[in-house]
């Protein structure tokens, strides 16, 4: 069934962000003959429209007041884009902006939003939205009876769109007032992605043999994405003074539930797993194929981390 789709885009260094392109990629597949448009707000939005692959039309405003996301300012603009585009489906990222816009937009349009979807598909006429629930123990599939349907989508759920950008642009109004006033921002340096928030956690244990091992782990985390991966340690490694206690994972440290947990040279003692077993996917790297960690792992690599991890870093850089 054809869908007119509006992707609520976000800008990153003057261009549509990676996840925006992913949403456009998904939209192209779901449109089934309908239109795909994108909204872009902030400095350079008009210029960026040309890079919004897969969108035929872009709703833009170059007002610099949009550069910092404020829900109350973005909402009227996005709402205008939805109305002008005649969208039957609105897609946005499960990002800081999407998390706030999704529910609020749904309220203003008297419709509903499915949050944090990993799959959006057209199942014989009705759109189905699938998302994890119960800490990843379950998945739920929804339909939305009202129009338009809105979904926020987890990054990496679609492949990025390719091809030409939007050929047509329409101007959205400049930003209005916001009762919420941003008075300061602090960007945490690359190491600072909180362990508990990172979608990917790379953790090392005593089996690394020396504190220098964590340097390699940091390289791996950087290769996975500085905005995604954080490095943690088992208590054994922290005890040896190889890593700061604030980054300890386990019964007496932090409890993390990332999408991907890569345990390197960690035996998988219960006290450690207490802090990591909620991870959605665990990859164990250990020399001992009987190591406990493999009882928890989806994927296991038996081998010396000193060889496996540099190879992995190389592979990721390709």
């Amino acid at each position, binding site marked *: 069934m054809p869908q007119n789709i509006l992707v609520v885009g976000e800008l990153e260094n003057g261009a549509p962000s990676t996840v925006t392109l992913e949403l456009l990629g998904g939209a192209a597949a779901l449109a089934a003959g309908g239109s795909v448009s994108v909204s872009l707000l902030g400095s350079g939005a008009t210029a960026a429209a040309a890079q919004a692959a897969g969108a035929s039309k872009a709703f833009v405003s170059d007002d610099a007041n949009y550069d910092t996301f404020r829900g109350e300012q973005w909402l009227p603009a996005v709402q205008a884009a939805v109305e002008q585009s005649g969208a039957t489906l609105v897609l946005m990222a499960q990002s800081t902006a999407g998390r706030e816009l999704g529910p609020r937009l749904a309220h203003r349009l008297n419709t509903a939003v499915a949050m944090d979807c990993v799959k959006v598909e057209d199942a014989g006429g009705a759109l189905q939205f699938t998302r994890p629930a119960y800490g990843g123990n379950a998945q739920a599939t929804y339909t939305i009876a009202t129009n338009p349907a809105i979904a926020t989508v987890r990054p990496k759920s679609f492949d990025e769109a390719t091809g030409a950008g939007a050929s047509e642009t329409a101007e959205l109004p400049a930003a209005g007032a916001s009762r919420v006033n941003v008075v300061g921002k602090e960007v945490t340096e690359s190491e600072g992605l909180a362990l508990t928030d990172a979608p990917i956690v790379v953790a090392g244990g*005593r089996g690394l*043999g020396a504190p220098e091992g964590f340097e390699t782990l940091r390289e791996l985390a950087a290769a996975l994405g500085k905005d995604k991966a954080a490095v943690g340690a088992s*208590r*054994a490694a922290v*005890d*040896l003074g190889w890593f700061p*206690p604030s980054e300890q994972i386990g*019964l*007496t440290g932090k*409890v993390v539930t990332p999408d991907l947990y890569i345990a390197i040279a960690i035996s998988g*003692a*219960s*006290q450690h*797993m*207490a*802090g990591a*077993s*909620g991870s959605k996917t665990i990859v164990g790297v250990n020399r001992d194929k009987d190591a*406990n960690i493999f*009882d*928890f792992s989806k994927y296991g690599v038996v081998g010396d981390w000193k060889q496996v991890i540099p190879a992995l870093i190389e592979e990721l850089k390709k």
Partner: protein
Amino acid sequence: MAAPRDTPNRAQRLVGGWWGPAVGMSALGFYATATAPRDEAGREIFFNVPAGPWAVYVFFAALVGLLVWGFVRHASLWGIGRPTPGLFRDIPQRLRNTARLGLAQDKVRRDRYAGIMHWCIMSSIVVLTLVTAQVAIEADTPLNFLHGDYYLFFSFYGDLFGVIGLVGVGMALYRRYFADFHRIRWDERLEDHIIIVGLGLVLLTGFVVEGARILVTELDAHPDWAVWSFGGFAFAKGLEIFNFAEDQVLFLHEATWWVHVSIAFLWLGMIVFTRLDHLFFAPINAFFLRTDSQGRLAKIENIEEQEVFGVGYVQDFTWKQLFELDACVRCGRCTDVCPANIAGQPLSPMHLIQDLKAHLADVGPAIQQHRHEHGDAGREVSPVALVGEVILDETLWACRTCGACVQECPVMIEHVPTIVDMRRFLVMNEARIPATAQGALENLEMRGHPWRGTSLERTTWMEGLGDVPLFDGSQEYLYWVGCSGSLVERNLPVTTAVFRLLRESGASFGVLGQEETCNGDPARRLGNEYLYQILAQQLVETFKAKNVQKVITNCPHCFNTFKNEYPQFDGYFEVLHHTEFLSKAMQDGSLKATHPIAADVTYHDSCYLGRMNGIYDAPRQIIEMVPGATLTEMQRTLSKGLCCGAGGGNMWQEEVGERRVNHVRSEEAINTGASQLISNCPFCIQMFEDGVPAVQPEEEGRMRPFDIAELLEDAVFGPKAKEETPAAAGDSSD
């Protein structure tokens, strides 16, 4: 079960019986009095000291007055405490404790050097007091008995104990001034020097006085009498060399007599102001010592009606807890054996007791006055907070409740209940808890077990074991698996080992499976008595409803709770730890260890099986019956064993300090050269799984921690194919 191996043996007991002969000797004196002829050996009392009699009685009267005043002063401070329940129950046992622990000083001898030293000094003081008393009786009553053979014998043993006293003083001086760094200097005060030097002076001047008298009255006239007072005789001989004129010797005698008597009374007067008061308080505290198990913590009755939970104000201690603060002699034994202190963590039981004592002295009188004037508890009187300022939170959290301090204390102070009382205040009244311990408590409340984040179920361990019988009241035993036994990955093999051995032994037993829930021990040790009581009451009811009579546990903490603490909730069950059951099963032949396990093992006594419940033999008997296994004991073993570090809820806490206790203990185990570290407790095993690799980073030849049931399982069924690591097979000798 046989008696625990390290209760004092008979020979040791006799050493403590020193007071018997001394009292006997004195009794002999009274008996000897009536018939002896008048002109035999004897001496003039108050010879050469005309003013002596009145001085002695003035001094004596002053001393008695001082002691009474001192006692009243102390007692009024203890009096601000709460009533102490049950203090006069079990009187026969309390009298035995007073004799054995107070008078015979069983615990002082746990340090051999100190035992000898203290025996010398104490026996000297008691015997010389009796000697002096006899002199007084001779002088001031119609009784005349210090003459003839008894006088000579009297002279002999008086001098003998004078010399023994000097030996003791010499040993004390050596330890205080010449021995290497020593625990008695951890809280050294001026009084310590004065006491020991003063005592030495009393004894020495006594000999000088006696020597001078002998020189004048006996050396020439009755040399055969003089030799009986061999000490005085030697001094007389010494003085003789100087060829003093007789009036010079008499002057020396008189002057020294005054010095001797003055110092002696001053020294006795110090009882009121210094740790010498242990002379009275130690035996009394032995009487007050609990007669139930050390493993039992006091129940807060009617907990919902308390004004304050636990002890956050000094007046909320029981008066026995305040009394025993005064018994402390700052010997440092408690701190010396404290696992937290050994690992450089912020707890010294001795300093804790001394800090409490100083705080009581500071604020006690004002509280007392406030009570007198206002009649309320006066909790706002103290300008400093007992918990948080006088005693720091971190100090209270560092305690493992392992009982080593209580075990060693020669004056029978019970540190652990005092510490837990303050923890109770911290947790229940103030809600100040280390984050990870809080997590464990919240987990207990929400999920009925302390293991946050476990992905196991209470039935996971049953997989692959065939039919696991559920307890329905028809079986003899309930096999209580416990939270650690079912929800902690490492302990599942222990649980299955115990299960297989029970089944093999033919025992009639069942398990509760999903119906198990925490018995509350971690909550109680962490200070949440309220939560503990809820959990305990529920479980007692479950047990009763299921008609549970006998329980086998694989966890010493569960064991201790069921056995010692559930009677507080009207839950009386026969409780066995698996080591007890298994050793009995092996002895009666229902279990046979036929597969040799060639392994050098060492054995770690968990605190709650060993110290708290005195089970030392059963596990060692099992090891002895495993063919091929040889046991090497660690330096600290049996009742002197060191905690693994997990006790008292420290399983769920981050440790603060230089080292971790489990690293220290693992190191001690590794030093035995054994390839397996055998224990009996799921907490210990986890601590060693963490500690051993920290001490031995090399995997090759690393010692492996096992529960004794795992060892026995291999010996009964043959080593499991799964155990392919070299250490388990015991062939990794280095």
